[in-house]
C-alpha cells in the first residue's frame, strides 16, 4: 500500500517536471469553456436568421408581411432588414445574411383578389440551419393568408372592388350588409379562436425536472449543452496522454526495475492511477470553475462534478494504460490508442452532445465509458442527478476500470521484459 503512495508521488513529480504539458491539459477545458461562453453567450437565446427584405409592393399587406416576420414568436428567430434589390442581391450573393426575401409588386392586390402570387426567397447556400427557419416562417404566413382569404376574402374583395352597379360608392345598405358579413364571420371565428378551442400550453422541462411555461427562451442553452462533453474531451485526451507512461517507463528501464522490486505491480500501476486522479481533478476544477463563472453554475454543484470527473477520468486512464501495453511497439500502441480515443470521443458525446445525434447513435454512445460519464456530469452540473442512475453509471465505469486494470497488471511483467 505504501508503494502505491510513493509511486503516485513519483509520478506526480514527473508530471510537474513538464509544466508545459500540464498547462496545456489544464488550459484545454478552460479554453473550451470560455469559447462556449463567447460563442453562445449566456442568455441561451437561439441563433437568429438575418433576412434581407426587398419590398417592391407598397401595399398594407406587403408591409404587414414584413412586420409580421419580426414579431409574434418569430422575432426569437428572425431579424429583418429592408434593402433595395441590387443591394440585397449583392449581399446575399456574398453570403451576407441568411436569405433575401423579395415581395413582388402587386403582392397585396393579388392577395386581396385571391390571385396567384409568389414570394421569392433566395437563401444562403453556405448556411445549414437558419434558412430552414425562414422558410418555415414564410410557410406559416402563407397558410395564414390562405385561411384569411377563405374566411374574409369574399366580403373584403367586394369592398375593395367597389360597387358593381356603376355607382361611385357603396350605398349604406350594402355597406351594412358587408360589415355584418365580416362581423358575423369574425364572431363565428371568434367563438372558436378567442379563446382557442384547442388550447395549447407549452412546457419546457428544465434539468431540474420542473416545467418552465413560456417556451423557447428557456428551452436550450448551447453552452450548457456542449460543456460537459467538452470537459470530457479534455479528460479523454489527458487519459490518452498519460496512458503511454508505461511505455516511457519501459524505455527508461525503470519498469524492469519496478518488476524486480518486492512490491506488487498492482501498487505500481495504482500509483499512476492515483497521480492521474489528482491531475484530472485539477483539470476538472478549472473546467467547472469556468462553468461557475461563465455559465452561471451554482458553486455548490462544483465539488460533486469535480469528483465525478476525477472518478470517471481515472477509469478512462485505466483503459488507456491497458491499451498502451497491447502494442508491440510504442508506435503500434499509439495507433491503437488513437483508434480508441477518437471513436470514443465522437460517439460518447464529446464532439457533439448525445442529444444532437440520431437516436440509435446516442443510445450506443450513452453506454460508452465517457458517454456514461458525460450524461451524469450534465445532471450534476445543470440538472437533478438521480442517485440510481449515478450508481449504475458509476458501477459500469468501475467495472470497465477493474477489468482493464487487471488485464494491465497481468500483462505488465511480460510487457516489461519484451
Amino acid at each position, binding site marked *: 500500500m*505504501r*508503494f502505491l503512495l*510513493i*509511486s503516485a508521488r*513519483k509520478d506526480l*513529480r*514527473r508530471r510537474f*517536471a*513538464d509544466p508545459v504539458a500540464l498547462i496545456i491539459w489544464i488550459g484545454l477545458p478552460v479554453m473550451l469553456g470560455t469559447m462556449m461562453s463567447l460563442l453562445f453567450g449566456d442568455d441561451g437565446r437561439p441563433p437568429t436568421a438575418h433576412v434581407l427584405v426587398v419590398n417592391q409592393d407598397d401595399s398594407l399587406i406587403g408591409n404587414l408581411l414584413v412586420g409580421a416576420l419580426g414579431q409574434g414568436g418569430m422575432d426569437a428567430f428572425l431579424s429583418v432588414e429592408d434593402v433595395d434589390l441590387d443591394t440585397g442581391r449583392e449581399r446575399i450573393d456574398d453570403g451576407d445574411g441568411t436569405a433575401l426575401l423579395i415581395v413582388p409588386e402587386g403582392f397585396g392586390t393579388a392577395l386581396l383578389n385571391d390571385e396567384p402570387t409568389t414570394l421569392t426567397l433566395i437563401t444562403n447556400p453556405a448556411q445549414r440551419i437558419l434558412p430552414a427557419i425562414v422558410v418555415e416562417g414564410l410557410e406559416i404566413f402563407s397558410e395564414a393568408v390562405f385561411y384569411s382569404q377563405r374566411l374574409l376574402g369574399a366580403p373584403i374583395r367586394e369592398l375593395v372592388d367597389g360597387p358593381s352597379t356603376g355607382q361611385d360608392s357603396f350605398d349604406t345598405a350594402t355597406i351594412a350588409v358587408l360589415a355584418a358579413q365580416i362581423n358575423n364571420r369574425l364572431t363565428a371565428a371568434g367563438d372558436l379562436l378567442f379563446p382557442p378551442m384547442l388550447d395549447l400550453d407549452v412546457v419546457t422541462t428544465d434539468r431540474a425536472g420542473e416545467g418552465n411555461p413560456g417556451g423557447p427562451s428557456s428551452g436550450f442553452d448551447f453552452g450548457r449543452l456542449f460543456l460537459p462533453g467538452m470537459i470530457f474531451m479534455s479528460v479523454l485526451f489527458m487519459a490518452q496522454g498519460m496512458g503511454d507512461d508505461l511505455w516511457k517507463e519501459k524505455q*527508461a*528501464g*525503470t519498469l*524492469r*526495475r*519496478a*518488476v*524486480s*522490486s*518486492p*512490491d506488487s505491480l498492482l501498487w505500481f500501476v495504482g500509483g499512476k492511477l492515483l497521480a492521474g486522479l489528482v491531475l484530472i481533478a485539477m483539470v476538472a476544477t478549472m473546467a467547472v470553475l469556468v462553468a461557475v463563472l461563465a455559465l452561471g453554475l451554482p458553486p455548490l454543484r462544483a465539488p460533486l462534478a469535480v469528483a465525478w470527473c476525477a472518478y470517471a477520468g481515472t477509469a478512462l486512464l485505466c483503459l488507456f494504460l491497458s491499451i498502451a501495453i497491447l502494442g508491440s511497439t510504442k508506435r503500434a500502441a499509439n495507433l491503437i490508442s488513437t483508434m480508441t480515443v477518437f471513436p470514443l470521443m465522437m460517439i460518447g458525446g464529446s464532439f457533439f452532445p448525445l442529444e444532437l445525434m440520431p437516436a440509435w447513435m446516442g443510445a450506443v454512445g450513452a453506454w460508452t465509458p465517457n458517454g456514461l460519464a458525460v450524461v451524469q456530469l450534465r445532471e450534476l452540473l445543470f440538472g437533478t442527478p438521480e442517485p440510481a442512475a449515478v450508481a449504475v453509471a458509476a458501477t459500469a465505469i468501475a467495472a470497465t476500470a477493474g477489468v482493464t486494470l487487471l488485464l494491465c497488471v497481468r500483462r505488465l*511483467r511480460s510487457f*516489461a*521484459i519484451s
Partner: protein
Amino acid sequence: MVLSMATPRVSFGDDILMIDVQDLRKSYGELVAVDGVSFTAGRGSVFGLLGPNGAGKSTTISCISGLLQPTGGRVSVLGHDVTRDGRAARQHLGIVPQELALYGELSATDNLSYWGAAYGLRGSALKGRVGAVLEVTGLADRAQEPVKTFSGGMQRRLNFGCGIVHQPQVLLLDEPTVGVDPQSRVRLLDLVREQVADGTCVLYTTHYMEEAQALCDQIGIIDHGKLLALGTLNELRGMMGERDILRLTGRFEPARARAAVGRLEHAEVVTADEGLLMLSVEAATRMLPAIFSALSDAGAEVQETTLTQPSLESLFIKLTGRELRE
C-alpha cells in the same frame, strides 16, 4: 571441446548461501537460453559470470532477479526461492541493470528516494541512505538537478546507486560498465569493492575478461547457455595447464597442420582451418622454432603470430574454440 566441472557447493562456514542456483533452465520455445546452470555465491564475495554477448548472462540474472520465470531448476536468494517466495527474495536484492533505469525528469535525490522507499526505507533512514549514496557515487553536488542533464558516466553511477540505496545483501550487476569511460569504470569497480567489503554478495556479469580477473573471487565461464568452467581465477588457470595460446594466421592445410603439430610434445591443436591455426602450447616461446619448422614441412605459410599467455581469454578460447569478443 567443452570442459565443464561439477559445481562445488562452496561452504562459507555457518553462513547460508546468498545465491544458490541449481540446474537453472530457461527456454523460449526451442531456443534454450540457459541450460542447466548451477553455481553458488556467499557473503562478501564476487561471483563473475563471464561470456560473450548472447551467452545467457543477462537471462541468468533476470531469472535470479525475478524478471523472468525459469523453465526449470531452482534459484534461491538467502534461502528464499525466487519463484515460490519471490517477494522475500527480492527484498534482499539490488539490481544494477545493463540499460540505465532512471527517471530522467527527476533529480538524483528523487530517484534514490523512490527506489529506497520501494524497498521499504522511510523517514530518516531513507534520507540518510540517500545522502550516503550520493556521497559515495560522487553526485552530491548535483543531487537536485534532473538526471537527464547528467553525463553518461554520472548516470551510470546513479544507476548503480539506485541498486544499492537499500543496502541489499545480494547485488546483481549486469554488465554495468558497458559504454562507460575508463574513469567512470574505475569508479564503478571501486564502488563494487566497497559493497563487497560491507559483506554484500555480488553477482557480476561481464564480457570484459580483465574486469572478471580484477574483481571476481569466483568466475563462471558461460557460453550458449551452458556453464563451461567454474572456479577461482587460480583454479581456472590450472585448467589451462599453464599453457600459452599460439594464434597463427596464414595459409594452412588443416589435416597436415594437425598431424605436424600432433607430432610435437607439449603442443595441442585447438582450432585448425585454412586461414587460422590456434595451438595450446607449454612454454610457447621455447617451442616456437619447432612449431614453425613442423608447419613449414607441412606446407604451411605463416603470416602472423600472436602469443597469448594463460588467461581467462585463453581458457575461453580453449573451451569454446573462439575468442571472447567474436
